[in-house]
């Protein structure tokens, strides 16, 4: 973390999490996180559910 960083509650950025939980004690650097938040597209969430659905994508070949 940068010296002298302006810290704010991580809950401000709950929108990007698929399940929104309250973690009031978790502080983050406002400058960086605001920049990230501004640059992310609408609808961006973590985790990446399509990848984590682990659906079989094709016939499994022998390695």
């Amino acid at each position, binding site marked *: 973390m940068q010296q002298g960083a302006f810290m704010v509650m991580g809950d401000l950025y709950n929108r990007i999490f698929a399940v929104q939980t309250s973690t009031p004690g978790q502080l983050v650097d406002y400058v960086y996180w605001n*920049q990230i938040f501004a640059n992310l597209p609408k609808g961006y969430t973590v985790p*990446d559910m399509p*990848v984590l659905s*682990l659906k*079989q994508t094709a016939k499994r070949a022998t390695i």
Partner: protein
Amino acid sequence: MNILLCTFWAVPHVGGVWNYMQQLRRELEARGHTVDMLGHGPGNSKIHNVTRNQEIQKSVLLPLLEKKLDSAHYPQLQDPVIRFYELERYCFELGAACIGVEGYDIIHAQDVVAARAIRRIKPDAPLVAHVHGSVAVEYMLHFQLNPQLGVTENSPAWKYFESLEHHGAASGKRTVTANQWQKRLLVHQFGVPEERIDVFPYGLDTRTFRRKASLGTPYRRPPGKKVIICPARLVFVKGVDVLLAALGILKQTRNDWVCWIVGDGDQRQELERMKAKLALHEEVLFLGQRDDVPALLQHSDIFVHSCIQDNQPFSVMEAQVSGVPTLLSTAGGLPEMVEPGRTGLVSPAGDSRMLAKQLAVLLENDDYRKQLGRNAKQWAESHWSLDRMMERLLTVYDNVRHGR
């Protein structure tokens, strides 16, 4: 064009992808394009755009991700392997978003994780996903060869890498691979639409290679010996242990050779122990990571790449351009790099006995060995044309930009 080359791996790093990125940057800049490079920083502690000197420490990102993505709310992240990779991926995505990926005419991702990241943070990006190898296959092999890990085909970790490969490789508007092996893998194992994939080989910058070769090396072929060379990172997938086992067999019948193993990696100590066990003290030299491989090749007689999995290594291309016959395994895209019996020989991956036989044949028969080398050189100079590769890549860029 304003182009971003990005990778999930470190920039710079040791390995073929980094060599490719540097080569690509030089070639694109020589054609008047502007190129930025984005990836992890050395030591994996930050994400940076090296060209613009912008960076973000992962310590800014990770605490909130760890706290919010707890296993109670996200059972999909309970598996420790999956959790580790997912947190790394999200750090990369958020880091890239913070640095910014706007304003590029082309974003050329060099691996499936970077491609997936760009697709997620900029869904309309003019994105090319370049697949240089298969992270999923490397992990599957790792799991198969280490049954104590308890990861099988039905385990979440196994399926996770399959899923990541599928979604990452399919993220680009076009997907590029270097050979038909990689394309078949993407289509048949990972479900990437065939019509989206372009296949063309890498190119070798022969001018730069020859300049480096002319700089020389302190190493010389020992009198009365032939040199077997194996430039490879000393990591599991490179199969250097297969070569050592073959050399152990070869030593029982011949002593007219030495072997230079050029590279470093996490298997170094284990391989040194194997060398000692096989009593190859005098025959095998571990030269470590070196910049003079082009010159070392000029003093070499036989090139070996006995890997378990590889795509289209530059080291093979360099050996061929140097007129050194190549002995390759059947792994990955390697068989597409030689015409067996005309420009080199191929042995089944992991088969040290066959490799030992092939080494003995080439050591015994000078005319045959030299003929293979001459044929390889002639074939390589046309097949690995850098200009041709750039033409094909710029066509892909053009198609992506214009939505074709």
